């Protein structure tokens, strides 16, 4: 009897080992994208062609921005190094094709989450990293302080391939105002044309307006009107059909937001391992087996926090300190009056 018990224990142990082994490799096996990324040694990330605060390259080719940080977080989680990202600048027009055709694995390019995009074109949105809304910019000298002062014949500069064109039509139609849409392929030309006086107003997401204003000849001559005419939840997108990869990207973003909630920063993350709070210990990998579900080790979230920082650090570094939008507005934690609220990591 005793003999059998011993044999039984070893059998159970063997099954258990086998089982964990298979679940682990199954996660990795199920995700072709994860496997390919680990084989290549870098995360392929689609970003904008230059939107300060979100994704912008400096003269040396270093990319910074909150959208860029999402990709860096995934690289830190999957490859252990936040710098192992290959950025592909994409126009609004190219972005979805680049993702569905497999040229990139994450699209983190101030992209609005809408039903038709999520359902129709083979994409899956994994979350929201910036709550935005479309607004209008005008010249201060025009005396316009509200969209209610818009009159028939107003010309509006914008760029194509975005929800902007649709919102603009809805807005002007509902107000019964006739307008002249001047739609460019690239944002730089929109700014140049508006700045030159081609258009009376420039319309796009308010974050974009704030960012582009910094590029203008004389930023102080322009104001962003207070009205917001649409909801624009911006977030990272992945291809449909790879649930594990989708989860990895979603929880890399969620980790950054939850880390801020618990006060874990890039500088104190290691110390937090000894925290009394189990939620904190789980986030820094000192407790639980959260990484196993994705086929990752247990330090994946710690690496994100240490190498990229929490959401608040990323926001401060990229958007607040650069003077684009010093006020976090809705992009504040739910505990501090904002609407950033992510499911718990457990």
């Amino acid at each position, binding site marked *: 009897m005793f003999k059998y018990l011993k044999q039984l224990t070893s059998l159970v142990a063997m099954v258990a080992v086998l089982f964990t082994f298979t679940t682990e490799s199954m996660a990795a096996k199920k995700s072709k994208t994860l496997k390919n990324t680990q084989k290549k040694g870098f995360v392929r990330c689609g970003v904008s062609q230059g939107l300060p605060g979100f994704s912008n390259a400096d003269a040396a080719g270093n990319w910074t921005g909150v959208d860029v940080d999402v990709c860096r977080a995934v690289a830190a989680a999957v490859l252990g190094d936040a710098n192992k990202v290959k950025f592909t600048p994409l126009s*609004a027009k190219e972005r979805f094709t680049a993702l569905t055709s497999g040229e990139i694995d994450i699209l983190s390019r101030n992209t609005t989450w809408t039903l038709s995009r999520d359902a129709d074109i083979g994409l899956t949105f994994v979350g929201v990293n910036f709550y935005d809304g479309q607004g209008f910019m005008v010249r201060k000298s025009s005396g316009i302080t509200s969209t209610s002062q818009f009159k028939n014949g107003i010309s509006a500069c914008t760029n194509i*391939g975005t929800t902007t064109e649709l919102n603009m039509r809805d807005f002007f139609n509902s107000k019964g105002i006739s307008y002249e849409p001047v739609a*460019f392929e690239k944002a730089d030309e929109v700014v140049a044309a508006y700045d030159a006086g081609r258009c009376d107003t420039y319309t796009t997401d308010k974050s974009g307006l704030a960012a582009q204003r910094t590029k203008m000849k004389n930023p102080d001559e322009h104001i962003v009107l207070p009205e917001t005419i649409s909801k624009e939840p911006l977030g990272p997108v992945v291809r449909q059909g790879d649930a594990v990869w989708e989860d990895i990207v979603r929880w890399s973003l969620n980790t950054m937001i939850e880390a801020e909630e618990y006060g874990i920063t890039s500088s104190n993350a290691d110390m937090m391992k000894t925290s009394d709070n189990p939620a904190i210990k789980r986030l820094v990998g000192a407790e639980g087996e959260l990484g196993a579900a994705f086929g990752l080790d247990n330090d994946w979230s710690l690496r994100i926090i240490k190498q990229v920082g929490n959401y608040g650090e990323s926001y401060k570094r990229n958007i607040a300190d650069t003077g684009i939008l010093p006020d976090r507005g809705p992009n504040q934690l739910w505990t501090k009056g904002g609407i950033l609220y992510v499911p718990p990591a457990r």
Partner: protein
Amino acid sequence: MNFKLKDIIPQLITVIAVVLVFGFFTYNAQINMENRGIDFGYGFLSQESSFDVQFSLIEYDGSHSYFRAYLVGLLNTILVSVIGIVIATILGVIVGIARLSPNYLINKFAAFYVEFFRNIPLLLQIFFWYFAALRALPLPQDAEAIFGVFFLTIKGLYVPAFLWQNFNIFFYSIIAAIIAIILIKTHAKKIQEKQGKQIPVFLISIGLIFILPILSFLIGGVRLSFEVPVLKQLATTSFIYEGGVSLPPELIALTLSLSLYTATFIAECVRAGIQGVGKGQKEAAASIGLTPNQVLKLVIMPQALRIIIPPTTNQYLNLTKNSSLAAAIAYPDLVLVFAGTALMQTGKAIEIVSITMFTYLTLSISISILMNWYNKKIAIQEK
């Protein structure tokens, strides 16, 4: 039998290879699209487009279908191509002849123009003309009227609108004038062949094309009035012109840059064509007493055209295809409206790109057929 088989086999292999390659691409695309949950189909063309377009030749707004948006883009592409081809041809012929001028200044100026404009990338030229124009043009409120009715501003060229009464009578009068001119021309040719007498066809034609329409005004009840653009204030410093017709600066900049660029190549074709006609032809023509004008019109040009037309056809095709650079400066052509906005809104990349490619192919082939027909017509007729 053996001999025939030898001929057929390579062709057969080529055909099979082509079919296989296309089959593989189609199959591959299908599998990939299925895996990614993208459906294929042209049904979206009848859906509501829900975006507006800045400039359209037909009635259009966001409540129309995607197909209508496609037509808007196509017509805008054709518009800019046709205007571009006409201006480029006129300018090209003038510069081409000027390059052969014995006048040093004219000659060198033409050469400088050709070398300058053909050696700068077209996209740069488009940006230059667009943004240079935007910087240089006045705001609507500062614009000086040209002849009292035209206003060239940063928001476009505003011209008076024509308001017609009984336009169809005016239209018929022009048609009648054209038919009359053709009849007179054939008659004049007959008389010249029979009696050697020359009738001043050109003067008569000019007379007809003016007199008949004027008659339509006097007795046909045709009335024309103009709606002159009027300045309207939108806000403290923001104005537009209302009434009349406005040509957007994007259209003007695009036509200008396409014409100036393509004219250089056409000028070279023209120069090559004229130089390709033997010197003896000119001397022989002069020796039988033709005036220099007649020499150029009756002897040199008919022969030069045979050399000029084929390469010029290429330039026409290039101009049409180059017009797709319009997207960079917000001129709503086929690429911007259909392969741009419509593609983004629907996500139907393969469908829309295939339609767009097919459309450009059709446009180009139409131009080719037209030019080949003309080329055949002026070719040496073996009798």
